[in-house]
């Protein structure tokens, strides 16, 4: 067997791994499907519309949460608060507060994720891959300086992980 055919075989064997498709929660999947088929300009308009909704995701007076995580991390330009409530069926409900210096893309992602992950089981949120982000945002906008677009999902997962660990610790005590 020649070198080129061996390489072709290896490439064929790797293909299913490289191109495996992530599964997303249904509401998030709907949003991804919508964005994926939009031209760049409409994608931006929709991101702005979502960014406008970000302020509606902040906690409201009287709401009680199972976990509150408010902090200013090195890699983000302002404070982000993640508030998690888990319902009796194990579904997550998020509220997120954003400082005024947070970038527009981060605001958009906040509204998208709060909607897309509404009532999704905590464990499933931990399994959500971040590879959908370029599909929403478009390749041109995913830049080194815009990497905080991934930040909100990371913070939501972090809250879920802490909540799960607490539940497990409580179950064993």
């Amino acid at each position, binding site marked *: 067997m020649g070198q080129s055919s061996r390489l072709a075989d290896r490439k064929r064997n790797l293909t299913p791994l490289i191109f495996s498709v992530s599964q997303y929660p249904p509401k998030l999947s709907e949003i991804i499907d919508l964005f994926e088929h939009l031209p760049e300009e409409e994608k*931006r*308009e929709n991101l702005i519309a979502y960014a406008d909704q970000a302020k509606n995701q902040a906690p409201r007076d009287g709401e009680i949460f199972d976990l509150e995580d408010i902090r200013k991390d*090195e*890699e983000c330009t302002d404070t982000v608060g993640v508030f998690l409530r888990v319902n009796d069926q194990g579904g997550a409900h998020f509220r997120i507060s954003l400082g005024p210096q947070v970038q527009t893309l981060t605001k958009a992602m906040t509204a998208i994720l709060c909607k897309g992950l509404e009532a999704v089981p905590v464990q499933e949120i931990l399994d959500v891959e971040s590879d959908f982000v370029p599909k929403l945002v478009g390749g041109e906008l995913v830049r*080194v300086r815009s*990497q*905080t677009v991934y930040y909100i999902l990371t913070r939501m997962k972090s809250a879920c992980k802490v909540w799960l660990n607490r539940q497990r610790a409580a179950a064993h005590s």
Partner: protein
Amino acid sequence: MPTEYAHPEALVSTDWLAAHLNDPDIRIVESNEDVLLYSTGHIPGAVHIDWRSDLQDDIIRDYISPDKFATVASKNGITPETTIVFYGDKSNWWATYALWAFRLFGHEKVKVLNGGRDKWIAERREITREKPAITPTTYPVPALRLDKEIRAFYEDALGHSKNHLPLIDVRSPGEFKGDITHMPEYPQEGVLRGGHIPGANSIPWKTAANDDGTFKSAEELTKIYTEGVGLQPNDDIIAYCRIGERSSHTWFVLKYLLGYEKVRNYDGSWTEWGNRVGSPIEKGI
């Protein structure tokens, strides 16, 4: 000590701009780090020029060619006679970067809105989401890019280091010392080594700006750069940061506000120097 900027005409106030929104000889250009910020609302009549997609080459790390620059200028209704007022977020980092890039192509009539976008918004002045209707122009293709005049490359910075010529490192003290390899509050931008170019002076860009994003006074700037660093009128100065945007701010200060004739921006900056095999590095103060 000077009480006026060397080129006061290079700065405009928010009042001045508000009175010139409909001036046909002026084009207002917004340039931001936040890629969607312009779309959330901008100064009426302003166009958006993106530091990456409009001013940089798609493939290689370099600026656009003169013919592409002519296309960008033409589609934004700019002619060589147009006075461009640049403004943006982050205390005008990207506004001065865009201004510097326009100067690379020889566009002479350039100004900066003092205080940038934040000051305009803080003063509750009008913003709109409506994109201006621009009549395209035909900007002549510049004969060349002024790389030699206002842009420094690795070899230039190395020469300055070896010959003890003025190098201004405008990054944060932590980056200069090599304690961190990213900007505070920013993700890692892929630099393998921390520290600074040997012999560089640490003058963070922020020392030139007030808390509201406006530039400090001529007296204050003279104290910082002329007295503090000891820069002489005929010095050959190179400023650098990580990718050239914060150093554009300092370049503007040195060139237009303090009047140094020979100032260049090393846009390769630390993301080139800190990654390049064999480049000499100093750590600590």
